[in-house]
């Protein structure tokens, strides 16, 4: 079994109203050092088999085809 974590984040320059709202809420809670918040998504994926190179290629394809919208999002894959 291969365990992977895919992280999807908004590209630089894409406005993130949800991140901004969270940033405001953190400031309101007194976390005065918060300079910026960007919200993203994490996917933990378990895959059958043990071929890591194959899994890496499959995971990249999953990101391109579904998990990220590459118009606005970047993705990173970590294989555990």
């Amino acid at each position, binding site marked *: 079994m291969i365990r992977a974590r895919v992280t999807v984040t908004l590209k630089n320059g*894409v*406005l993130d*109203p*949800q991140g901004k*709202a969270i940033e405001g809420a953190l400031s309101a809670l007194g976390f005065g050092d918060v300079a910026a918040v960007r919200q993203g998504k994490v996917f933990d994926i378990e895959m059958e088999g043990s071929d890591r190179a194959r899994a890496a290629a499959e995971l990249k394809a999953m990101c391109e*085809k*579904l998990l990220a*919208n590459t*118009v*606005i999002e970047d993705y990173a894959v970590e294989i555990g």
Partner: protein
Amino acid sequence: MTAAVIVFPGLNRERDMIAALTRISGRQPSVVWHAESELPAADLYVIPGGFSYGDYLRAGAIAARSPVIAALRRRAAEGRLVLGVCNGFQILTEAGMLPGVLMRNAGLRFVCRQVRLVVENAGTAFTRHYEKGQVLRCPVAHHDGNYFADAETLRRIEGNGQVVFRYALGTNPNGSLNDIAGIVNEAGNVMGMMPHPENLIEPAHGGTDGRALFESALEAA
């Protein structure tokens, strides 16, 4: 002219769309479930609004990967007309059939109100019964209608006249770049828009400003 309405689990505006198409064309559209891998022959294919798959992952993302969309892509390539309203617009962008993406509203709230739309391009198959610069009233009801595209894409679609509808000055409900409310693809046969023209087609709706859109498409087809 024949129309087909594509339905995904979680849509909720298909009845309004079917009623509008029936009323204006005089014929019931066929209704196609998302799992179908073939689409019946039709001149106009419509994806209505709602919340396909609960907006999981991203609005329209999962619907855009369903079998019926592959069939829709083939119909669009044949030059048939395709209209996506609200969630339908989100699905068409997620499917890559229209440029850009619809993000969470800048104000973070669901907006349900009437806006004013300016007809930017009255030369499309969907807008030829309007005049350029005409201002329409039209309802919007969405949480993810904030149109975004990178600077180069935005320049390209503006330059090509692909922006069909803009929110009138001061009525942009969602933060869309350039006040964009509706666009067409480069070929001009696929249109997506966030507002709901199907909800303004008879006097009982409080106005008929949406009617000419369907009349244009039906005539073009």
